[in-house]
């Protein structure tokens, strides 16, 4: 099978007047269609930079990033990006917020709006379509943000610590929620997180990065042997603890 995304020997440095900081150094990995990949690493190691490169907000100084064999561009590519906060706009209703992506892409069609209606219904936000974001719970807001991304029918989803702004309990619920939705929709995704258990519970493979400049420490395939891999079930699987210790060791060995 051909990989959906190929990251080849990517390096990037940040330039400021006071000097140059190497952020990423020769990063390489592939993402298969339908695969859920998690990227863990010490904070400030360049995880978010990696996502910015993949979606085309930044261009690698060396190496290449190919999606379906072609270089990525923000304007044209079908890459969905979920940021750390939901960034729902308070001056718009939930429906209008979900519509934002289609609006800026000038792709509002009857089929697309029907899809929004359907997704709002499926994910329990139909009642809130005219509500303001502040009237929703943290979990519902994340779901709205996810729908905003999914209606663009992205071929790949990037998640930049999308749960980090939530309190612990909500966080578990929401990651379970979002993880289940993504599995159901069969979307390939890359999740950046510093939470090891979140990575194991959601991903098929985990990439461990070293501290700055980030290099790929190891690639760990998560095989929990579950019939239904929801994040909650994964957290309770027998193999979970072993993976946790493995990644923990990988992260700490190289500090």
């Amino acid at each position, binding site marked *: 099978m051909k990989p959906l995304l190929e990251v080849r020997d990517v390096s990037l440095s940040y330039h400021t007047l006071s000097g140059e900081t190497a952020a990423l150094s020769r990063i390489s990995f592939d993402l298969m269609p339908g695969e859920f990949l998690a990227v863990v690493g010490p904070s400030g190691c360049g995880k978010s930079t990696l996502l910015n490169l993949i979606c085309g907000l930044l261009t690698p100084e060396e190496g290449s990033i190919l999606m379906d064999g072609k270089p990525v561009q*923000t304007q044209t590519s079908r890459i969905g*990006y979920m*940021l750390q*906060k939901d*960034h729902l*706009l308070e001056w718009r209703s939930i429906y209008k917020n979900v519509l*934002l992506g289609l*609006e*800026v892409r000038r792709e509002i069609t009857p089929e697309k709006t029907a899809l929004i209606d359907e997704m709002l219904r499926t994910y329990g936000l139909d009642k809130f379509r005219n509500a303001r974001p502040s009237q929703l719970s943290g979990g519902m807001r994340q779901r709205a943000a996810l729908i*905003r991304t999914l209606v663009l029918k992205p071929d790949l989803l990037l998640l930049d610590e999308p749960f980090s702004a939530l309190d612990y309990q909500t966080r578990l619920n929401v990651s379970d929620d979002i993880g289940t939705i993504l599995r159901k929709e069969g979307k390939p995704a890359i999740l950046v997180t510093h939470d090891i258990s979140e990575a194991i519970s959601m991903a098929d493979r985990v990439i461990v990065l070293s501290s700055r400049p980030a290099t790929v420490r190891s690639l760990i395939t998560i095989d929990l042997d579950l019939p239904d891999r929801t994040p909650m079930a994964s957290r309770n699987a027998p193999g979970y603890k072993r993976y946790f210790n493995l990644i923990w060791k990988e992260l700490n060995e190289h500090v």
Partner: protein
Amino acid sequence: MYEISPAQKQYLKKHRRDKQFVSAMRVLIFAAFLFLWEISARAGWIDSFIFSSPCQIGKTFLEMCMDQSLFSHIGITLIETLVSFLFTVVLGVGAAVLLWISSRLSRILEPYLVVLNSLPKSALAPLLIVWLGANVRTIIVAGMSVAIFGSIINLYTGFMEADPEKRKLITTLGGTKKDELLKIVLPSSVPLILSTMKVNIGLCLVGVIIGEFIGARRGLGYLIIYGSQTFKLTWVLMSIVILCIIAMALYGILSLLEKYCLKHI
């Protein structure tokens, strides 16, 4: 209706009392001031020729209302203020948008804006009269000159503070810089634009009066200058009172607009 506890009732009562006291004191101070002024003028404690008196001001007001000369003075000042205000808002937002679009342009123009903003604009008024002539257009420009530079700086600073993460959201959704402006920067700056407008209306009035001082044949500013030169100080004081009312009314209208807009966005 749910039940209100006695303690809550007491609190509300206290709050209401407090508010009533403040309003009563305001009215009382104003009434006492008018009363003292009138009494001292009549008793000859102050020279009513230069200090006038509330009754004289009232009488003059009624006379000028009768011969309708006052309305044209008030009208022209109001129109000049409103036109210069509208231009200030439109040009201010427009210029701030341009500066936001090009950070290089804003960096180049920054020192000029700072100098123009801190310059006392009344210094420009005589020049404007010479250049543009003693007409309504000049006075409108004088009104704008007081408000525009500060409002450009204010608005631009506000635009730049729009959440960069939200702007990134637009980019990741596939939007352009224009979308960032229309979907994020402008909507999130609505409260700022409204509060800038509130400040601007007062500043435009200041500029218009300065302009009328120097080069007008009509308007409240003209009335003040004419009155002071011919020692009709009742005219001057009456115009000042009317200006107070106009300033309060314009500010009040914009406050209502602000409240309405913030509720409905």
